[in-house]
């Protein structure tokens, strides 16, 4: 057994763009909107900075969930960044789903700088969703047929 069920705390990595979602996370803090401690944020300048490799790496290292947050499409600080993110992540998510590995453990959400409360809500929902799924082991085992 890796961990006891009752002590199981999912590990969740949130990639947040500096201009919208990271500011949204700050907003959640300012408004004292609670979200679980197991969500850890990594700041990136724009959601388009997030390489699918980072997400795979997080999963491989034992993350139970990965969420990528950026500005709403059309509101990207860099004008077009999140449009590319959207296409890239559509392909990635679809592929994860196709491989039967982490399709339901990866999410993309758009959270603006003004949406502090929504940031907390999105994180709470995602954390509850991941907690319900339980520990992620598949990606670590993908290439080792027993």
């Amino acid at each position: 057994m890796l961990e006891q069920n009752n002590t199981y705390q999912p590990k969740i990595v949130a990639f947040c763009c500096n201009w919208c979602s990271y500011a949204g996370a700050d907003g959640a803090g300012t408004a004292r909107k609670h979200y679980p401690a197991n969500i850890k944020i990594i700041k990136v300048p724009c959601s388009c900075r997030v390489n699918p490799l980072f997400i795979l790496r997080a999963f491989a290292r034992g993350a139970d969930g990965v969420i990528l947050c950026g500005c709403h499409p059309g509101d990207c600080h860099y004008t077009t960044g999140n449009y590319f993110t959207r296409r890239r992540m559509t392909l990635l998510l679809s592929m994860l789903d196709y491989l039967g590995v982490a399709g339901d453990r990866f999410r993309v959400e758009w959270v603006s700088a003004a949406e502090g409360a929504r940031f907390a809500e999105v994180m709470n929902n995602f954390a509850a969703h991941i907690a319900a799924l339980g520990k992620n082991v598949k990606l670590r085992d993908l290439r080792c047929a027993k």
Partner: protein
Amino acid sequence: MRKIEKLMREKAAELLADGAVDRVLAWRRGEFFYDNAPAFFADAKECEQIVYDEFCPANLCKYLLQTSSKGLKAAVFLKPCDTYGVNQLLKDNRIKRELVHAVGTPCSGMLDIKKIKTAGAKGIIKVEAAGDEVIVTTALGEIKLPKAELLLDKCRMCKGNEYKIADEELGEKLPTPVFVGDKFAAVKAIEAMPPEEKFAFWQQELSKCIRCNACRDICPACTCEQCIFDHPESPVAGKAYADPVEEQFFHIIRAYHVAGRCVGCGECARVCPQGVKLGLLNMKFMKDINTFFGPYQAGADAVTPAPQVDYKQNDYEVSIAVAGKRGK
């Protein structure tokens, strides 16, 4: 095909003799009659060694990297499906158009020796295609087999006899195998599986891989100066790190990297010594790109930007795109 072989030899010799090109890229007889190999020809006199028959599946376009980087002008014989690869190399700025002399070479489908052997032919001496049939000469005599069943997998999904790039064409275009049915049928079958089944399937497929890199080396879209898997600074640590991440994700990342650039030539699956169904990964991305971003065929020309470097303001949202296809 013999006729075409003669035309090829003449054309190659002519181009080399004139000094119109520095090299000719063609096929040469291998150890067995069915393993014709790619070869460079620099001398008009050698051109008699050029062979062309139903066992020349290799796409020669990637060898243009070598000539182009050295500033050598090369003539290359391209079957219709091979022309997509050339366009992709041009689009990726990997070869110089002025250093390529593309010669369209008719093809009516390449044969799979494994399938011929499986069909019951033993002690094969010679194989010749004649219309819809294949005449197999064995030590025990001649047998006739239906050609359609002996084609290479990639030829069963033939894209047609159009050359997407050609400076000249040899002879008349040949009728190509007609593929009937859904080329994404196998992808759809996996998509329809429950997650556990998908996982089991891929776990089994990917575990076969021995990391020989044949798929990467043959791929006309895999043309990086330095592959990230060989590069110690890259996000997937290099071999020295012996990180399991690299092992697990090699094929996923490779497929992701060539998505939108993969021309669907099927060479990766053909050369895989372990028979990993690599096409299913590439075809999945192709299908998704077509579904989510609109019809796109990499290599159809050398200018249209790949879907991942393009966008529409009203593209599907990530969750909607994927969930919608899941049928939720």
